[in-house]
């Protein structure tokens, strides 16, 4: 690219004319005083803004954003890959469990299992299975079973010692 053949002289003269645009009279008289006053009051300027601003101003994010703006193909590829990841995540989350894999049965401590049991407890009529194997109806939630086991009194029979033995 050779800038020489273009004649930008009239444009440059027009742009230089912008130097005549001046702020209101007296604007700079107390500008520095206002800056110093804000510093003295502990004003951190944009340092006090939230995580969003910090993220936006992060150099790596700036470079990445600039690259996306300049290269539409890159932006498209990035968008596609994000959509792909999202779709993969959705598919994985709703995919039927193989009959052999009973990981959630082992994981009674896992949050997934607890959540599933809670749902089953609240609306047992609508519980369905996507793998064609109907789950066994759940009688009670884990918590209720635990509560019942605590509430039910236990009879302890203590045999009385035989008198006279």
């Amino acid at each position, binding site marked *: 690219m050779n800038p020489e053949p273009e004649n930008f002289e*009239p*444009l440059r003269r027009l742009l230089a004319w912008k130097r*005549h645009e001046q702020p209101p009279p007296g604007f700079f008289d107390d500008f520095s005083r206002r800056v110093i006053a*804000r*510093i003295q009051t502990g*004003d951190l300027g944009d*340092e006090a803004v939230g995580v969003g601003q910090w993220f936006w101003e992060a150099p790596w994010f700036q470079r990445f954003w600039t690259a996306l703006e300049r290269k539409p193909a890159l932006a498209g590829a990035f968008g596609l890959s994000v959509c792909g990841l999202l779709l993969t995540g959705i598919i994985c989350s709703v995919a039927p469990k193989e009959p052999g894999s009973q990981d959630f049965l082992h994981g009674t401590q896992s949050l997934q299992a607890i959540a599933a049991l809670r749902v089953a407890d609240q609306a047992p009529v609508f519980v369905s299975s996507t793998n064609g194997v109907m789950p066994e109806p759940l009688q009670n939630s884990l918590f209720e079973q635990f509560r019942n086991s605590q509430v039910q009194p236990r009879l302890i029979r203590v045999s009385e010692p035989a008198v006279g033995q």
Partner: protein
Amino acid sequence: MPADEMDQVKRARKGDLAAYDALVLRYQERIYATIYHMTANHEDANDLAQEAFIKAFHALKSFKGGSSFYTWVYRIAVNKTINFLKQRKHKAQLSLNDLDLNAEHDPDLVALISEKTPRREIGLAELQEKLNAAMQKLSEYHRLVVTLHDVQGLSHEEIAKIMDCNIGTVRSRLFYARQQLQAHLSDYLK
């Protein structure tokens, strides 16, 4: 960096606000003007210029002196302005400053209007608005290069330091920006 400026930076780094006041006084007009030409809005330029100087004060400890204070504070102001412009992208509103008394008698402009411009009846205010509107159509980086070079009069080298890029990039951006502006202002530049 001039010796007195170096001294002011050292003192300001230790919390001497009088020294920092002197630094602000030295660069306030140039920093404000750059931001104003980028935003075409006086209120925004005022806020951003103040925040740039406040941020620079708090960041002085990280200033190693590898570049001049002038380049360093310019970079802070420019980055802040570009971030601001990216966020407000769709709600730009012009709030132009008045022209000073010399504008009407600027020989360059008088010659430009009387000899080249087909619409000689154009008023200065209208020309100012058209020029600023054309500037706003450029991307932030192209507008910045034009502002720093053609309005502020900085060299390619200084701009490359401020924008943290190489001189070739500055030249190509300047060329492209001028082409764009020439197209937008073709009615006024024939």
